[in-house]
């Protein structure tokens, strides 16, 4: 078969909703796009453990502490599935982690914002996981098999996190004045960064068209962002809180909420490394990695010794 035939049969599979599997032929750009996207997604889970891990020691009740620890642990698990899915495209986990630690690979910018109060644990669960879920639900049907299957597992846990986040805010919203203020302040700080999670506007997005054609993505950034806004604008009523956007308003003609302009300057600035916590996040990841180097070396050395012992025994 010529390259053209391979490409045609590849696109045929995609058009017929047949998943692409690791050993199947795929265009190099498809492999690269998936690898970039899945590894970024894995890194986001791992870096995302830091802002929430920040409140484990201070969780205000034992029940909340257990819920938070389990949530951060789930994220580590998601990171594992995703690194495994990305490895099927030909890059080792070690290499991916090196790329993260050196700053070469990206992760979701949302985790470059600080968690400043306990209410942030609720807001992150409700808004950040809520935004992530819309993207991930779509990705359960993405064309690359290992990624789609990882997403199915992840989505179940993420929707649980989102409910927990909302429930935690609901308690604060019914609490003392200080708790209600804390809740509103967290929503104010996390709202706009959550909207930025969907990426640039469709008109500005460089990778969108090809990704849609290959069914890596099935909805555009703007479509997903709009569904998120429509969902949250309704849910916030139950909290009796407000979203920090004076232009947020139901549009009867569009059957969607209209909303104000996102600060794209801030978006690009954080992407470029100037967010409030970009530096701290990478320092924390590098520290854990570097300080763990002797542990990993010892585990390898011990496994080797053991293998040799078994060989001698067998001989």
């Amino acid at each position, binding site marked *: 078969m010529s390259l053209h035939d391979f490409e045609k049969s590849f696109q045929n599979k995609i058009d017929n909703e047949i998943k692409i599997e690791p050993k199947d032929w795929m265009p190099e750009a498809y492999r690269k796009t998936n690898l970039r996207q899945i590894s970024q997604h894995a890194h986001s889970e791992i870096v995302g453990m830091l802002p929430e891990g920040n409140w484990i020691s201070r969780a*205000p009740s034992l029940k909340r502490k257990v819920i938070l620890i389990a949530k951060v642990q789930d994220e580590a698990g998601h990171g594992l599935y995703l690194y495994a899915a990305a490895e099927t495209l030909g890059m080792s986990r070690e290499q991916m982690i090196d790329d993260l630690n050196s700053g070469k690979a990206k992760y979701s910018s949302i985790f470059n914002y600080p968690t400043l109060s306990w209410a942030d644990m609720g807001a992150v669960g409700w808004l950040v996981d809520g935004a992530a879920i819309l993207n991930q639900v779509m990705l359960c049907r993405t064309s690359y098999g290992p990624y789609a299957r990882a997403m199915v597992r992840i989505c179940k846990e993420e929707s649980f996190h989102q409910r927990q986040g909302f429930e935690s805010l609901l308690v604060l919203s019914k609490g003392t004045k*200080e708790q209600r203020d804390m809740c509103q302040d967290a929503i104010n700080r996390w709202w706009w960064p959550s909207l930025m999670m969907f990426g640039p506007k469709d008109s500005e997005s460089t990778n969108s068209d090809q990704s849609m054609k290959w069914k890596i993505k099935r909805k555009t950034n703007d479509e997903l962002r709009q569904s998120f806004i429509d969902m949250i604008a309704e849910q916030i009523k139950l909290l009796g809180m407000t979203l920090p956007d004076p232009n947020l308003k139901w549009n009867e003609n569009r059957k969607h909420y209209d909303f104000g302009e996102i600060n794209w300057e801030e978006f690009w600035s954080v992407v470029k490394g100037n967010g409030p916590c970009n530096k701290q996040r990478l320092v*924390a990841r590098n520290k854990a990695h570097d300080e763990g180097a*002797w*542990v990993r070396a010892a*585990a390898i050395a011990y496994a080797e010794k053991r293998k040799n012992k078994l060989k001698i025994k067998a001989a």
Partner: protein
Amino acid sequence: MNKSSNQLIDYTIYLGDCALILGQRNAEWCAHGPILEQDIAITNITLDLIGQSRNFYQYAAQLINAVENKNATEDSLAYLRMERDFKNLLICELPNGDWAQTVLRQFFFSTFQQLLFEKLKDSPDEHLSAIAVKSIKEINYHIKWSGEWVIRLGDGTEESHNRMISAVNNLWMYTGEFFIAADYENSDLILLKNKWLDKVKDIFDEATLTVPENVFMQTGGKTGNHTEYLGFVLSEMQSLQRTYPGAEW
């Protein structure tokens, strides 16, 4: 309140405090572990420990409320007591140190906890017995996991071996306290010591480590005489409850 119900409350709180404070320390590894899989593993142990502490505190609260007109809860016990009220073993509150010290501490503690809970299982007190039965399943895994790490690091590289030796030297002086009975404990606690030592020696042999001898043993945790570290653990853990008294979370 008579002496025996007081002792039961103290004992139950002691068991809860050990699990909570060690859980609080281990939780510091969450998101900072040396390998993703091990980050998950130590976090699992943390969840087990905090779960155990909740079971003990809930029972202690029930006992307290039955004899005194109070509204004790698992959270009032965890968040509204001061250093001198905490009864956890000193080893639980020590800083994590490196991975060697963390896994060795877990191994020492879990091995002790298993022996203690095997006895507690037969306690006439149904609550304590039930908590022990449930916890032993978890503890068996904690011993397996931490024991394997002690062996792996002891018999790994020169660096990991040396780090294990430092960990043994740092921690050994805190293991004598396990077997010295406080006035709320049974005096036959000392009978567990040899069994504990046997298990430790087995693992140390495989890990090419030696058990230290003639070490002066630190004590005090069980009666509220702690290291200087505990105050910081508590002030961080309790900060929200202290700042917003009476709030629900």
